[in-house]
């Protein structure tokens, strides 16, 4: 681990402790996203004409302040967090399903199937991603969450398919695979018993690291106005709105941006720690 700055800083802490800490932060964020909005007297779309653009702490009811329409920023941030999390997790799930199936098939079967499948990945990689999202948005209307999911998920699995393929290829060359073959296992049995379980660690780690990436994609699309439509909010659309009033009402940018940063950090630390914990040979 020494060598990288992060490695130096983290090398002394036990990866299990790091994973636990990150998981606790994530759990708290998820609980807040699930129950926070309901526990508040305000809805994410309720307008409060008495308090427009109120800074945090200015009025007791809106402790994180309000936006230009008087909507409670605390509730909006949490419901934005909920939407961002939902999109991030769903998009990751879709990516993992496609990516693992695609990559494992290519790596395991090899030959022409491998070449064919991987060329498809190459072509998709080469397509301008933003351009496709624009077309999809134009075709299906903006703010369609299913389209958003599809657009994000379509990108995520490409890298995962490559990772899984590479991992499968290296597993195939391990001595214990030869042992399995000499033991009379069929191809499917080898795949089920020895390949997929050994992929699991990599995939879990990669998926954990992919969730924040997906959330960033969503935020990015929402920031560009291609994602969720008002009055619904995601962290990205909140940051977009906040950025416009950055000078007059900085809290509108700072609050959702802080939540986003904490969320991404927690996911990244969890992913890194899981990588250390899950590799059985490094323990």
């Amino acid at each position, binding site marked *: 681990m020494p060598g990288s700055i992060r490695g130096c800083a983290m090398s002394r802490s036990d990866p299990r402790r790091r994973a636990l800490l990150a998981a606790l932060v994530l759990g708290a964020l998820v609980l807040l996203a699930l129950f926070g909005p309901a526990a508040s007297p305000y809805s994410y779309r309720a307008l409060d004409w008495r308090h427009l653009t109120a800074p945090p702490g200015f009025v007791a009811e809106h402790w994180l302040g309000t936006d230009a329409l008087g909507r409670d920023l605390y509730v909006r941030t949490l419901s934005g967090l909920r939407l961002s999390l939902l999109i991030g997790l769903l998009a990751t799930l879709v990516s993992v399903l496609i990516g693992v199936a695609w990559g494992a098939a290519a790596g395991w079967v090899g030959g022409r199937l491998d070449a064919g499948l991987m060329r498809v990945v190459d072509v998709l990689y080469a397509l301008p991603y933003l351009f496709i999202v624009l077309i999809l948005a134009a075709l299906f209307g903006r703010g369609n969450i299913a389209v958003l999911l599809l657009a994000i998920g379509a990108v995520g699995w490409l890298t995962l398919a490559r990772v899984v393929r590479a991992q499968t290829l290296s597993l195939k060359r391990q001595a214990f695979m*030869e042992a399995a073959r*000499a033991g009379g296992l*069929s191809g499917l049995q080898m795949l089920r018993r020895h390949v997929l379980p050994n992929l699991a660690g990599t995939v879990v780690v990669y998926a954990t690291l992919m969730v924040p990436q997906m959330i960033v994609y969503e935020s990015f699309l929402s920031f560009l106005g291609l994602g969720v439509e008002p009055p619904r909010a995601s962290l990205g659309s909140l940051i977009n709105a906040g950025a416009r009033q950055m000078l007059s009402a900085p809290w509108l940018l700072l609050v959702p941006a802080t939540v986003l940063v904490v969320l991404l950090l927690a996911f990244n630390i969890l992913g890194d720690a899981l990588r250390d914990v899950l590799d059985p040979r490094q323990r």
Partner: protein
Amino acid sequence: MSSIPASAEAHGASGEATALLALKSLSVRFAGVPVVDAVSLAVHPGECLGVVGESGAGKSLTFLAALGLAPPSARVSGEARFGATELIGRSERTLDALRGRRIGVVFQDPMGALTPHLRIGTQLTEPIRRHTGLSARAARARALELLEQVRLGEPARCLQQYPYELSGGMRQRVLLAIALSCDPQLVILDEPTTALDVTIQAQILALLAHIKRERGIGLVLVTHDFAALAGLADRVAVMRNGRVIETGSAAQVFHAPREPYTRELLAAAREPPGPAAAAAAADASGTGAPVLAVEDLAVHYRRRAPGLRRAAFVALEALNVALAPGESLAVVGESGCGKSTLTRAALRLIGVAHGRIAWLGRDVGTLPERRLRPLRRALQLIFQDPLASLDPHLTVERLVGEPLEVHHRALGAAARAERVAAMLERVGLDPALGARRPHELSGGQCQRVGIARAMMLAPRLLVCDEPLSALDVRAQRQIGALLDALRREQGMSVLLVSHDLNAVRRLCERVLVLYQGRMAELGPSEALLTRPLHPYTRALLEAVPVADPDVQPGRLGAVPLSERGPPAEPGGCVFRSRCPLASVRCAEEHPPWIEARAGHWVACHHWERGADGMLRA
């Protein structure tokens, strides 16, 4: 600093015999646990100190710590004096001036110790220029001179080559040249011959003895193999669990060891010749048909040749061998001779170019994989690297139970667990280890798991690919004994691939010697290992080190110091470029496979001349 001849300076300071390197209660701790525990050792000028012990005994770490090369998490205490300089706790700068300059080090892994993308010349001249400030031209001349001293075949060409172009033995010579490059007073060698073939090992050992004599420098030879020390070491230190448990002159330790542990290690190194293995009684179901038979088997690998052309590499050619039920056959030869290829091809794990393969009397050469699967249970395989051959994410219990899960699906979980526990006990594993994963076991334990897995289906043939070479000496003996006992109990056949001729003699009735993919000699192990007919077999036998300091120097003295000649041109006998008996006839026609004595076959035109010269004891 000028380059003063090593011995002059060492003796110059005072008349008395001051130690070159003196360790005084040197300890290394990891997280409070002592791994090296109060070690005190000394090396004097012109002397070779042999440090012997099993893996994990702390042998290498002791000297790495003395040189400031222990991992950063290690806590080093005690003293390590090099001449008058204390090494422990000194700055990197001070140590850098000594390491490579006054103290040369040769690390264990000749593959890993050279930088893959730099030419040998660059890697060799770098320390010379850094420590002596010679010009590029002078450093190059010095490098050439060094490569000649370590007897590399074509030194000028070697300087231009990359590490991957060299064989293991050549790399070890280069590493030795680097260690010697600045006229060090002391060279520390960490398992310098472990990764090498016996014949190459003998050459390197002979070269070390020669260099020690010529230069009069101090040597530290760290090894797990007592036999490698005989004939080289003047004094021997035996280490166990981080402690030095016995030190003494070589003669004393070899002939009159005090500690029982030393005696055990010596006994493992000195296999009593004893009676060769006898055939196990074949079980009742045994028909007369051979368990495994190959006829005219050939395996070719496609290999990228220089340029874009792909050339076929002949890994095996014209192989005929059959194993009777209950018989044990050993396959020996240097690395790359096709031993492992033979096992894989015979088990139909790799494609063959041509030839017939029969299992239990049934021709399986053309069966599709799907039809082979149910037959595979009768022929099981044990691997060289026990850890790599076990799926890292499965527990021991699941690993050993897997063959049953696959081949006896009707068996319930409880019945399976029972049979797994019984098998674990049979191979000498505590059933409580069942919940562990492979990386939590020692090498010997992993190999026992591998054996338990293979034995689960009561196979008729056990193919063992170097099952002992990754293990410690004591584990080697135990695992060898276990294999032998299982063979007798089950009446199964064993095909053992090994380079350890002592183990072969103990475990197998017949021996097949391969050279460059061709059969050189096949015969009863007793006859073949004491009265070999083929010159290659004789070279192999002469290269085996003997753990006796009275005999070994003579044997080493007979070994040529330089590496073997270039591979033979195609056609004729493949061994002729290394053969002392080679004649014109050998270059013209391939020697026929003839039965020279009853059951003793050889492929050599001059076997009768060879048979006269009995093997030196």
